[in-house]
């Protein structure tokens, strides 16, 4: 029997709020993970490039680094490999493809909390980044990396790098949502270069000079690297690790705001 409009209008809404939003985010994230697995060509370069850079740099700069007093250059370079894996620029591309194809509109037509669409996609991206970071870490350990804080420290390092990846990925999602342009979303990768190269990536901070040293001091990645290197080279140095986490939080506050604003502009 046909429901009357009055009945429709007064129909009780389904469960809503945070549990419903998280439930929806789970299904959105599950779909994202499935799509990533179905297009390995999209994420395999994200595994290969950081490993390639790591081994090339360790192979070519290890002897040179002893001049700076760095005798465990593998441990010194590991955070760079992890940051490469965590910031590979693929974030937001699936979302922008959904926007282009019209599927994102289909999702917006459901009663799902808008934030769940972003949280689900970013959650799936976090899983991808975590797997990539774990892969880099396992290969580095297999190649003879001596890790100061042991397996527990290695796990914490992978988690820190993944959380950084999440903060960084918000840039891609923000651009995707704001512009709906795959080219613009892909360009999020460009932001990574000044962040990583204007930091003590290949030599310690005290070995840098002039403007580069000034730029490195203002770069949050410098403090993140110090925290990560504390784990890989020095031990559980709480201060450095804490400052590294603060750096991630500061960048994350900015990038997540960007992503949320992008979402708001898309659903307005």
């Amino acid at each position, binding site marked *: *029997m*046909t*429901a*009357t*409009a*009055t009945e*429709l*209008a007064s*129909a009780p*809404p*389904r*469960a*809503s709020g945070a549990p*419903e939003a998280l*439930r*929806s985010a789970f*299904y*959105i994230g599950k*779909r994202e993970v*499935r*799509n990533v697995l*179905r*297009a390995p060509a999209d994420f395999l370069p994200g595994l290969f490039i950081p490993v390639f850079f790591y081994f090339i740099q360790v192979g070519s700069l290890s002897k040179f680094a002893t001049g700076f007093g760095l005798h465990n250059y593998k441990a010194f370079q590991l955070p760079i490999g992890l940051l490469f894996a965590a910031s590979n620029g693929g974030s937001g591309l699936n979302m922008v493809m*959904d926007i282009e*194809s*019209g*599927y*994102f*509109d*289909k*999702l*917006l*037509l*459901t*009663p*799902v909390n808008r934030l769940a669409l972003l949280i689900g996609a970013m959650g799936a991206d976090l899983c991808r980044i975590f797997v990539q970071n774990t892969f880099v870490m396992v290969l580095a350990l297999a190649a003879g990396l001596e890790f100061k804080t042991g397996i527990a420290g290695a796990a914490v390092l992978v988690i820190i790098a993944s959380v950084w990846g999440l903060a960084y990925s918000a840039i891609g999602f923000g651009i995707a949502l704001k512009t709906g342009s795959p080219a613009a979303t892909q360009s999020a990768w460009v932001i990574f270069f000044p962040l990583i190269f204007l930091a003590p990536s290949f030599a310690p901070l005290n070995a840098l000079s002039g403007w580069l040293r000034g730029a490195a001091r203002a770069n949050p990645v410098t403090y993140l690297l110090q925290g990560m290197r504390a784990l890989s080279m020095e031990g559980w140095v709480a201060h450095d690790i804490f400052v590294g986490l603060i750096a991630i939080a500061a960048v994350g506050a900015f990038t997540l705001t960007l992503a949320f604003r992008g979402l708001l502009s898309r659903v*307005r």
Partner: protein
Amino acid sequence: MDAIEASGLVKRFPARGDAAPVEAVAGIDLAVKEGEIFGFLGPNGAGKSTTVRVFTTLTKPTSGEARVAGLDIVRNAQAVRRIIGVALQEVGLDGRATGRELLELQAHLYGVGGGEPARRARELLDLVGLADAANRRIQTYSGGMKRRLDLASALVHKPRILFLDEPTSGLDPASRRTVWDEVRRLNDEDGITVFLTTQYLEEADELAQRVAIIDAGSIVAEGTPAELKGSIGADVVTITVPSEKIARAEKALAALKGVKEIRRHKHALTLFIADGSKAVAAVVRLLDEAKVQLDSITVASPTLDDVFLRATGHRIEGETAAVGVA
């Protein structure tokens, strides 16, 4: 209470770069009764899709009010989304998913729980004839299959009001007929109110119980197809002549007895005349006297395109270069 109602609905897009601002919806008033199939007919760019995007909460109106099932589309947007099903003009599907996965996800996002999403997906895939392709990736589907899957995804939560934006655009005649049959069945058996936009006259005539004709963002005529066609109160005589003789032909036929209105096009004249078949001989004689070569002449009962022509001065389909009114 009407299923869908709008009052003074306006959607304006601001200027972007060199492009001027656009008023895509220019003050629409309409009411769609519960349980009816309502056709929203107009040419490309008339404002049909924007109206649908406003009703379905994808775009906020610039001004005016609209209600769906009595719910304000701005203030109660989320509640509106629970009630409506939507198939947009651009078939938005996830090409990497299978048909089954897409429908199951859609069901989950509407809060359908337990084993119900899988059951509902099976049911809908059967309904739209895609059971055999259920586990194939959507990127391998044909255009018609994608349309049918899109329609199925709009039905996953058993909506009471269905918005279909150009549902048969780009489909072959057989697939178009399949969609029409399904829309009728949904309306007849399930009592679903259907708001259907189309640029196909035949589609509006076949499916819609009432039709609103939209042009340049405004509704120019509204009623049942029979009422609209009857409102012309005349037969439609169309003659084609060489384009350089069109003005002379128009002048000659202006004196024709019983002619209510003449619309001039590039190569043709459309005459609204009381008894078309009887007027044919007089038309031929007048053109002959004016030394205008007649290429063709047809007499027909009015169509919705004629209603559109009379209201706007141009046709929905075919020639749109109407330039004058007698």
